[in-house]
């Protein structure tokens, strides 16, 4: 009779007689702490320069104080917030800021995309030169460029009026001043935005455009249906930067060229904030306004970052 014997599974390897290596408690502690130690310098800077001032601003916003160490700071509760939120100049400043944001979007989105797309074929040394040229305005100190623009915008002998054949008093007319601030700020940040868009374009795989052209798409269709959608995370990022930083980018120009005027035509929220704090020496109102902007910008940033995450297409 035939006997069927099941093949046994492979026997486990005999236990090793060497005791497992054990690290000392001290070494394990250092090992666990290492990532935090690496983070520490950055965290320390954030705490000192961002979080501590933020907390101090919260504290200041409940006080009425003129910033003089000798004068008393009186607690006023939420009164500063009530006054700031009901002040008519706040509404005006928000309007001016919104105008700056909308006015700057062509310089941070539209023009950079057009320039970056048309400069894609530039290669090698010419590319480096072109990038340096486009980026150069970013490297000019804003106050220095403001001084030069002041000459260029001079209503009598300025180059701008002469080239355009206009008789505009650029920095004294409210609308003209707003246009001037937007254009000069736009000139400043254009190179930066173009570099970001170029980097975004460089990061998209050429294979998609190649596939689209074989699939029958025309160059225009490739740009609109493939390239720009793939670039959308970059564009959302630039929109976020524009919304959060427009008032900040224009600040040194406003301060040098118009000081917020004529009237309040170029008083953005940051300029208003600065006026509260360092013109009126009203620390409480300045801090309260700062906190309000902080909360609003936090919400805007959260929305746009979420949007950006949704728009990122990670194709491994």
């Amino acid at each position, binding site marked *: 009779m035939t006997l069927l014997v099941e093949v046994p599974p492979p026997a486990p390897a005999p236990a090793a007689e060497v005791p497992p290596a054990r690290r000392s408690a001290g070494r394990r502690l250092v090992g666990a702490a290492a990532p935090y130690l690496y983070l520490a310098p950055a965290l320390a800077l954030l705490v000192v320069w961002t979080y501590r001032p933020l907390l101090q601003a919260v504290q200041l916003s409940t006080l009425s104080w003129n910033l003089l160490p000798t004068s008393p700071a009186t607690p006023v509760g939420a009164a500063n917030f009530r006054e700031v939120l009901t002040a008519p100049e706040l509404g005006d400043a928000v309007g001016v800021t919104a105008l700056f944001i909308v006015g700057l979007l062509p310089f941070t989105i539209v023009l950079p995309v057009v320039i970056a797309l048309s400069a894609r074929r530039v290669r090698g040394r010419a590319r480096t030169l072109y990038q340096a040229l486009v980026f150069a305005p970013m490297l000019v100190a804003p106050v220095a460029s403001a001084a030069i623009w002041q000459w260029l915008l001079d209503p009598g002998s300025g180059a701008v009026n002469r080239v355009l054949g206009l008789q505009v008093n650029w920095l004294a007319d409210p609308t003209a001043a707003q246009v001037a601030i937007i254009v000069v700020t736009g000139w400043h940040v254009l190179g930066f935005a173009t570099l970001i868009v170029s980097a975004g374009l460089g990061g998209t*795989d050429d*294979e*998609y455009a*190649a*596939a*689209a*052209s*074989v*699939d*029958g*798409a*025309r160059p225009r*269709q490739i740009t609109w*249906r*493939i390239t720009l*959608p*793939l670039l*959308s995370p970059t564009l959302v990022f630039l929109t976020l930067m524009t919304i959060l930083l427009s008032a900040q980018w224009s600040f040194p120009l406003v301060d040098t060229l118009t000081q917020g005027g004529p009237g309040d035509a170029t008083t953005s929220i940051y300029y208003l904030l600065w006026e509260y704090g360092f013109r009126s020496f009203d620390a409480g109102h300045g801090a309260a306004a700062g906190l309000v902007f902080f909360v609003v910008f936090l919400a805007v940033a959260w929305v746009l970052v979420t949007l950006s995450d949704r*728009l990122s*297409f*990670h*194709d*491994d």
Partner: protein
Amino acid sequence: MSRIRLSGLRKTYGDTVAVDGIDLDVADGEFLVLLGPSGCGKSTLLRMVAGLIEPTDGRVLVDDADVTAVPPRDRDLAMVFQSYALYPHLTVASNLGFPLRVRGERRAVVREKVAAVAAELGLTELLRRRPKELSGGQRQRVALGRALVREPGAFLMDEPLSNLDAKLRTSTRAGLSALHRRLRATVLYVTHDQVEAMTMADRVALLDGGRLVQVGTPAEVYDAPATTFVAGFLGSPPMNLLDVDAVVGPHGVRARAVGLDLSLPDAGPGPVPDAGSSRALVLGVRPEHLVVRAPDAPDAVLRGRVSAVENLGSEELARCVLGADGGPEVTVRGPRPLGVVPGREVGLAVDPARVHLFDPDSGRRLERRPGAVSPAPSSPAVEPALDDRPLARSLP
């Protein structure tokens, strides 16, 4: 379906020649595989056919129309990319419909054709997903579907299976072959995988250093390699190539090397006498055509020592060093067990009909023609230039 012809197609980057004057005719409905190692110019060649790379010289013809200067979208060719290049921001349905949408096809028609292709490739359940939510095999099918959906004149495929695991590659290979048979599609297929070439191709075109080395059916290129490159590229393990001193006489060829004394008689068995003109040759034998014998067997024309034996499951490979230590190495392949032991002496026999001869300088195949004074060059590896042949209609 379309016929694709390439005439003197050339591409150089500075001093580097990527593709060096390719003449090739892909017949209507033919599955032609461009096979070669990495960097042989096969992908560059395919991209020139697609219109993605502008050739330095030469012409591309689709159905007798010169499309060399025609943009990719008007060539009526579809391409499957190695990376699949699925548009990451579009759903599977939009990816499949893209070629139709950009050509201005109506939405209803697009939806209908996408549904049909999706059903054919088993993608119906996945139509709403985005590429990142798909597995490698599903992505490959979407890429194929995007090529199929607009019923192009021909398909260009750039290593479409190289990103799949071995098992999926085997099944997809069969699927592609079946699809080709059913559609009678013209396919120009680039790969470095000889198994894909041998199993799927109607004809294989081997490229080396930007040049076409041989074009033929899988059996032709395997059984009669035109050069030592083809002999050494095809087959796993590839053909054994040995430098030998030969005497070419009136009754055949007598080849000698360390551990080798082989007679290739023109007629009948028996040794070839040592009379005639001497010359160097490269002798090629496929591992499966070497037969293990006792070291002192009379028909053991190769003698050496077994250096290693590899178990492939159904077969075994034996590596043998011929003659003394430091001699040339040959590989023997046969059903397991081969009956050899590492370190032992071994004799190897071979059927003279299975022996290939090559010129050591040009590397080209030498055919034995009994009665001729010297071996004539082998059949042309490169097809006749396009200009030498009549065209169905004059070119623009």
